[in-house]
Each structure stands twice: as structure tokens, then as C-alpha cells.
């Protein structure tokens, strides 16, 4: 195991301390609760636990065993070997938060580069060092907007086409802000209706509007006019993005977003059953002092050499305690590093390639599925790499059938949207070959014919 002490060393140490045995060090713990028996399994050596874990892992069917058409917030992308090889370096993996900059320049420079890449990818001025995931980044955008208006604007408008888990997380986070109203995603609203309907809700009480691009249903649109209308009311606009889509698409920065949030998982981070992921958070420069989370800035040392430090730390909880507007302590350091290496290794050309592959393959799949009797792609308008299919029978039945053919089917939208019962959200990435898509289409056809 991982405790190096020999019996002799233990004795010497106890003598130096001046106690007879280790138990004597715990006399402050009330006797009535001291040294409980723990009902845990017997210990295992590395060889034994490795075998046991292999068994557990093999009890799953992963996207290595199945053809994956499931997205809805987590995506199956190719991760080049270079990403994992570098993030496993102990110098990155086992370092702490870089509070001591003289011996943390590696982590600090990597975050600085991450901030630069995200700013450039999103077309925004400033990115922070990351949040936990897309959902919490969206919640932090609400907190930021609330404090930006010092609580005087009491309404947040959420698009019903914003990821349902983001909307749920926002509601949980904001429960302590009692005068706050969260509107726009009421169940009776048609989630596929034009987002312009949301503008009717935007008024002088509105602090923030959050939309998604591509939205939860995969749809894409130019938000420029929408942003102008939000700004007319003096409110802020946050756009939740998929970073892979921005390899191809016009940036939210160019469309007038004040805040960009997003799930960074597609940038070289494995799906890992839901985490750890990466929360993207970027803003226009006028809000730099309002954002939560860590920021790395460039500076110089006493000899004038370039170096990096955590900056604007006076905003943070360890200094401001209850006056801080966020309790955030960590970022997703290692995940941000993975994204940085992924974007560096793919570069200008590679990211565009991945982005286009997703786009073309999704459009091929949508066209083929739409041609099957009983199925209809109901997005209307342009989309990126996800689309909504109206199915001839329940999504669950279809997915069971697909699973029998080794296919992980799409997301059942009826779970979140009563009006979208029997609607499936299908995601296609560069990992899906034409044969995969053709197989999906043929099984869907078979299901429909037998229905």
C-alpha cells in the first residue's frame, strides 16, 4: 500500500512526539465515538482490484461496443492519443491549484493558453479558467447577471430549447434569490417554436436571456437581431454553445453575446458516464471583473521575465468570504488542459475538419431517416449535428430494438417535453461511418415496417 512507515520508524517518531502508541494521539476524540468498526470489504492488492474493476467495466456496453447516436449534452468524439499521453504527466496531474506561481508556471501557462483558445473560438474577449460543466457555467451566468444589476432586475428568461439539465441546475442554484423570476420555458410553450417568442418576455426587469446554439434540438440560427432586441431592453444575452460546432459556425461573439457558456466535453474529454467535464465561460471585456472562477494573467517577474499568475483574486471567496458572489474554488484544471491540447493538436485545420464531418454526416443521416415511411425530421431550418425525428412508435421501443442490433439510439425527448412524445434526438459525429448510419436507417425501417 501507500504508507511507507516501518515499525522501527513508527517507534522513533512516537518517541520524538512523546507518546507511547498511535492510539494516544486520538484522546481528543470522545471515547463513546472513537475507533468504530467499519463494515467495509476486505482489502485488495493492486492485482486483485485491477481484475475486479475490469469485471465491472466489462459489465457495461460502451461506445466501443455499440454504435453511438446518443448526444443530448455529451458527445462521442475521437480523442487523439496525444491528449491523454500529456495530461497523464504527473507534473500536470498531481499539481495543486497554482497559488505559488514561481513553481506553477506550467499549469498557469496552460490555463492562459486555454483562455486564449476559448476566447478565439467563441469570438469573445475573455475566457475564465473554466467551471465544472456546461450546466453550472449557465448557472454562474445567471448569478453574474443578477449581481451585475445588483439584484434590481429580477427576471431571467430561459429558452425552452436550452438543455433541460442546464435549466434544472439554474433553478437549483437560484433558489436563494427569492425575488427572482425564471420564465420562458413553461411546459405549455412549444419548444420548437421560433425563439422570437421569447422576446415578448424581455423587458426592463430582465437581467439575462439564455439561448443555445446549436440549441438542444440541434438547430442553428443567426442571433444577431435577437441580441439587438435583448440589448434594447438593457438586458444581457448568454449563448450556450457546443465548441465543436464553432469550428464551422459564426461565433456568438460576432452575433452580440455578452456571455458565452458551454459544455467543453467534446474537446478531447471522454464521455466517462457524465464527468468530469469542462464548463466554458467567456465574456465581453466590460464584464471581466464580474465573472466568477479563476483567471490567469500575464505579468513579469523581478528580472523582467514573462510569467503568469492568478489574477483578480480579490473577487474570490478566500478573500471576500461572505461578500464573494460565488463560492467557486477549483476550476476543471486537468480537463481544461485536455481541451487545450486537443485544440492545439487539431489546430485550425483539424477542428474545421471534425466540425464539417459532424455536419455532413448528420445531414446525410437526417435525409436518409426522413425518407423512411413513418419517420419525419421535424427541425425545420438549418441544424448542426443533432436533429429531431418524429417516430412511428415510442422511442423506448425503438431504442430497445436498436440495442439488439448494437446501436445506442437517440435521446427520448418525451422525458423532458410532453409535447415531444415519440420524438427522438439523434446525434451524429465524426465517429459514425456511413455504414453505421446506413445500419441505423435499415433498423429504423425494419422497426417501422413491423410496427
Amino acid at each position, binding site marked *: 500500500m501507500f504508507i511507507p512507515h516501518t515499525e522501527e520508524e513508527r517507534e522513533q517518531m512516537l518517541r520524538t512526539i512523546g507518546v507511547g502508541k498511535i492510539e494516544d494521539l486520538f484522546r481528543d476524540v470522545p471515547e463513546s465515538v472513537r475507533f468504530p468498526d467499519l463494515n467495509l470489504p476486505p482489502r485488495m492488492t493492486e492485482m486483485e482490484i485491477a481484475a475486479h474493476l475490469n469485471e465491472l467495466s466489462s459489465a457495461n456496453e460502451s461506445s466501443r461496443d455499440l454504435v453511438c447516436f446518443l448526444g443530448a449534452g455529451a458527445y462521442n468524439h475521437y480523442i487523439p492519443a496525444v491528449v491523454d499521453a500529456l495530461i497523464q504527466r504527473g507534473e500536470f496531474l498531481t499539481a495543486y491549484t497554482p497559488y505559488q506561481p514561481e513553481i506553477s508556471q506550467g499549469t498557469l501557462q496552460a490555463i492562459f493558453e486555454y483562455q486564449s483558445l476559448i476566447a478565439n473560438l467563441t469570438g469573445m474577449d475573455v475566457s475564465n479558467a473554466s467551471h465544472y460543466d456546461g450546466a453550472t457555467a449557465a448557472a454562474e451566468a445567471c448569478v453574474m447577471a443578477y449581481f451585475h444589476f445588483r439584484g434590481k432586475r429580477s427576471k431571467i428568461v430561459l429558452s425552452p430549447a436550452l438543455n433541460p439539465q442546464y435549466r434544472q441546475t439554474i433553478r437549483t442554484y437560484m433558489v436563494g434569490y427569492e425575488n427572482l423570476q425564471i420564465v420562458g420555458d413553461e411546459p405549455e410553450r412549444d419548444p420548437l417554436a421560433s425563439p422570437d417568442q421569447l422576446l415578448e418576455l424581455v423587458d426592463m426587469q430582465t437581467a439575462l436571456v439564455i439561448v443555445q446554439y446549436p440549441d438542444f434540438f440541434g438547430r442553428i440560427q443567426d442571433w444577431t437581431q435577437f441580441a439587438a432586441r435583448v440589448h434594447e431592453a438593457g438586458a444581457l444575452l448568454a449563448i450556450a454553445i457546443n465548441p465543436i460546432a464553432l469550428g464551422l459556425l459564426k461565433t456568438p461573439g460576432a452575433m452580440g453575446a455578452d456571455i458565452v457558456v458551454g459544455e467543453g466535453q467534446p474537446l478531447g474529454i471522454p464521455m466517462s458516464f457524465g464527468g468530469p467535464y469542462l464548463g466554458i465561460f467567456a465574456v465581453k471585456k466590460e464584464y471581466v471583473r464580474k465573472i466568477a472562477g479563476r483567471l490567469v494573467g500575464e505579468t513579469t517577474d523581478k528580472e523582467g521575465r514573462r510569467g503568469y499568475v492568478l489574477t483578480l483574486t480579490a473577487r474570490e471567496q478566500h478573500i471576500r468570504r*461572505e461578500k464573494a458572489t460565488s463560492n467557486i474554488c477549483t476550476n476543471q484544471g486537468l480537463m481544461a488542459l485536455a481541451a487545450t491540447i486537443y485544440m492545439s493538436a487539431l489546430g485550425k485545420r483539424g477542428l474545421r475538419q471534425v466540425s464539417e464531418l459532424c455536419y455532413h454526416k448528420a445531414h446525410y443521416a437526417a435525409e436518409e431517416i426522413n425518407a423512411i415511411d413513418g419517420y419525419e425530421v421535424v427541425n425545420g431550418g438549418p441544424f448542426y449535428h443533432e436533429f429531431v425525428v418524429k417516430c412511428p412508435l415510442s422511442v423506448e421501443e425503438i431504442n430497445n430494438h436498436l440495442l439488439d442490433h448494437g446501436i445506442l439510439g437517440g435521446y427520448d425527448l418525451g422525458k423532458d417535453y410532453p409535447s415531444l412524445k415519440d420524438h427522438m434526438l439523434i446525434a451524429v459525429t465524426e465517429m459514425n461511418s456511413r455504414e453505421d448510419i446506413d445500419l441505423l436507417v435499415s433498423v429504423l425501417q425494419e422497426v417501422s415496417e413491423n410496427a
Partner: protein
Amino acid sequence: MLEPTIYELSSPGRVGVEFPAPDVPRAPLPEELERQDLPLPELSELDVVRHFTHISNLNYSIDFGFYPLGSCTMKYNPKVNEAAARLPGFAHTHPLQPIETVQGNLALMFELQEWLKEISGMAAVTLQPAAGAQGEYVGVLIMRAYHVSRGDRKRTKMLIPDSAHGTNPASSAMSGFEVVPVPTDNRGNVDLEALKSLCDDTIVGLMLTNPNTLGLFDENVLEVTRIVHEAGGLVYGDGANLNALLGIGRPGDMGFDILHFNLHKTFSTPHGGGGPGSGPVGVAAHLADFLPEPVVGIVEEGTEEIPPLYGFIRPIKSIGRIKSFHGHFGMAVRAYTYISMYGREGLRSIAEHAVLNANYLLARLRDHYPVPYDRICMHEFVLEGHLPGTEVHALDISKRLMDYNFHPPTNYFPLVVREALMIEPTETESKQTLDAFADAMIKIAEEAKTQPELLRSAPHNKPVSRLDEVKAAKELVLCCWLPEDVKA
């Protein structure tokens, strides 16, 4: 300049990782939505490997040396954890797959929940929170929901000892509560008289770290939790210092109603240069219905031949969802691996050796640095970083330690100690390492008297010297300079 940035290394037209041409017809791109430029760097794969290898060498890390950071529990991060989390069945499962296809993941999560319950004495556990600070926020939201569910809306004050982590007051304030500090007595415990006078029917509860940030176990903990409960409040336990309690005492048995765990401290998942963490939350039986959704449970009982079917459950009065999906599963795999390797027989030895190491270092340093609360400590202790008759500060001592190839202790925290140096050695450090560190600390104490300038100008042999933080905050350069050709 130590190492150019990826943008400075970029060469127009250079290609790194490539992808195949589409095997489907190209769909027309929506012209008005297509971006015109993609300002990412252009590097070869070797450029990338060398760059990140170079900058990694500018970091201090546990793999390189001793990291006595108080309250951070910088123990060894076993390599088997990394291999475990990368098994394809774990790493490549989608979070929304049908539960029948992910029974291995769910069984692991269920078992880890059970183990954390057993270790802490709590009745129910969620693995969802992403980090300690988020676990804390969950705890505060549960306290709020509990009082509201009883129609008890006048409770608005959160009691927090003055030695607490800054996240405690920040989490409380985020939830709309007023923070009321509780003083520390002269033995480093919560001041019982002060606590009694603050406890009435307006308190939400108390947020208590035990052992506290002075590394001291609160000798009156049973009394403290009783006083808060009598006033109708709940006691929240900050699990930052749980490493000292494994197999020693269970917070649930001491009267804590809520506890968050830091898998990245106590259970050896790597800190990763500042995350990802993982902050599961455990609660006593009367709060189990308030846990965030989802928790993993048995949805169909098994038989002797057939294992149970695991699935996700929404507690009936749940505070809701706190992040996407089900928590940092990859971190859960690592913690599961670690706990398995200690098991029933071994877990207590972690706390025993962490406490042994801390007391040994304290014994070696006691005569050289002022010790504000000189008692048997738990897994960490606090020294004062100002030495009588010298002008040096905790910061100077910290920076000078770097010259001796040690990471500095946590400094200037807790706030109740002047020039605090907070030292937590963890159980994975050997006597030889502790002796070398103590020797360096003692030498520095001498240098402070004889050559104070050596401390004030430290570090001397690191990639950079002290950095200008004022300039960084004033100029706010937060993004790489873009060479013109990249910008275009």
C-alpha cells in the same frame, strides 16, 4: 520568456492531427452562418508534445516532491487509479445510456455511496456534486429546504467559526443567509459560551470543520452539536479534513447532520492543477429525502442468482439537480479503487499515519517557530510564520522553502493565526522526507536571523522569481498575443 505560447509557435499551414475525408455527400453549408476565420494555432504533433512537456517541467507536483499544503491533503495519487478510470467500459459510456447497459457503472456508484455512508456514519449519500465547494452549497441548500419544508421560515442566520474556510461563508451567502461568525476559544475549540448565546430560533445551523483548520479536534464536539440541535439548527460538516477521521470517528456519530467529502483530498484522486474535484454529500436519515437528484439505488431487487438492477432515483423532496448528469464519475472510479485497496483493515491506518506524521513534524519544529495552539494535533498543524527578533514574513519563509525543493505550506490561513503557516504532511510521506523538510524549516529559521535578505528575495533557483501581481491585475492581459497572420 520561459517558453513561447502555442500561438507564438504556430506556423501558417502546418498541420497536426488530421481526419478522414467525408464518406457521405457534402451538405451545403449555411453560408450566412459559416465563420470566416478560425484563429487557432497551426502546429505539428511534435510541436505540441514538446511544448506541453516543456511547460510541465515548470510545475511542482506530488510526483516530484513533498507538498505540505494544509487543508489540501496532497497525498500520493496511485497510478492504478488512472488506469482504472480509463478502462473502456468506464471511460466511453454515455451518461444517458439505458441503465441495463451500464450496470457496472451503477454498481460501482452504489457501492461507493454505501462505503461513504459507512465511513461517515451518514444515512444517505449523493455523488453528484462536482467539488467540495459545490458539495457545500448542496449542504446549505438542503438545510434551507429542510427548514422551509417544516414551515420554519424565520431561520436566516448561519453560524460559522472564525477559523472556517472562505467557501463556508461564501456558500451560505449564495443561499441568501446572513453569516454570523463564532469565535474560537484559547484551546482552539469553538467557544461554547459564545455559541450558546448565538443559538436561538433564527439560526439555520452551524458549519463546522472538525478537525478544524488549526488541525485540532474539537474536544467538545458532542456538546457543540447538541447545543445547535436544541436550538432547532442543523450541523453541517466540512469534510476537508476527513483524512484525520477515517476509522477514528464518524461525523454521523458525533451529531453532524450533513457532511461533504472531498474525493480529491481524502480518497486520493489527483488535484490536476486545480480540478476536477469531486464533492459527494452525505446526510442523516431525516435529510435523505432532500438530496439532489439523482442518487443511485436498487430499482429491482436481485435474487441469489440474479444481481439487483441498479438505477437512478429522485429523492422525493430533492433540492433538484446541481450539475449535468451524475457527478464526476471518473473521480468516483478512482476513489472506489483507493478505498478497495485499504478495505476494512487498512482504512484506519491512513488517519493514524497522517496524524503521526503531523505530530512528528510539530514535535521537530515546536522549538523553532511559535505554535499558537500547542496541543496534540490531528492531520495538520499551524505555526506562526513570524519569528521573534526578525522582519521576515510567512510569505518569505514559504518562498525560501522552494529553494530547498519543497512546496510551501498553506500560508495566511486560517485567519485567526498571525502569519499562519499551515502544514499537512499526509500519511504517504516517509520519515526521511519529513526529516529533510524539518531540517530545511529549521535552517530557514536560522537564516531569518542571520541573512533575512535571502528569504525576502527567495526563491532564487526557480524558473521565475516573484511575479508582479499588481501589474497582472492592472494590465489584465488574459489572452495570448495573436500574431497578425493568425488574426487574419
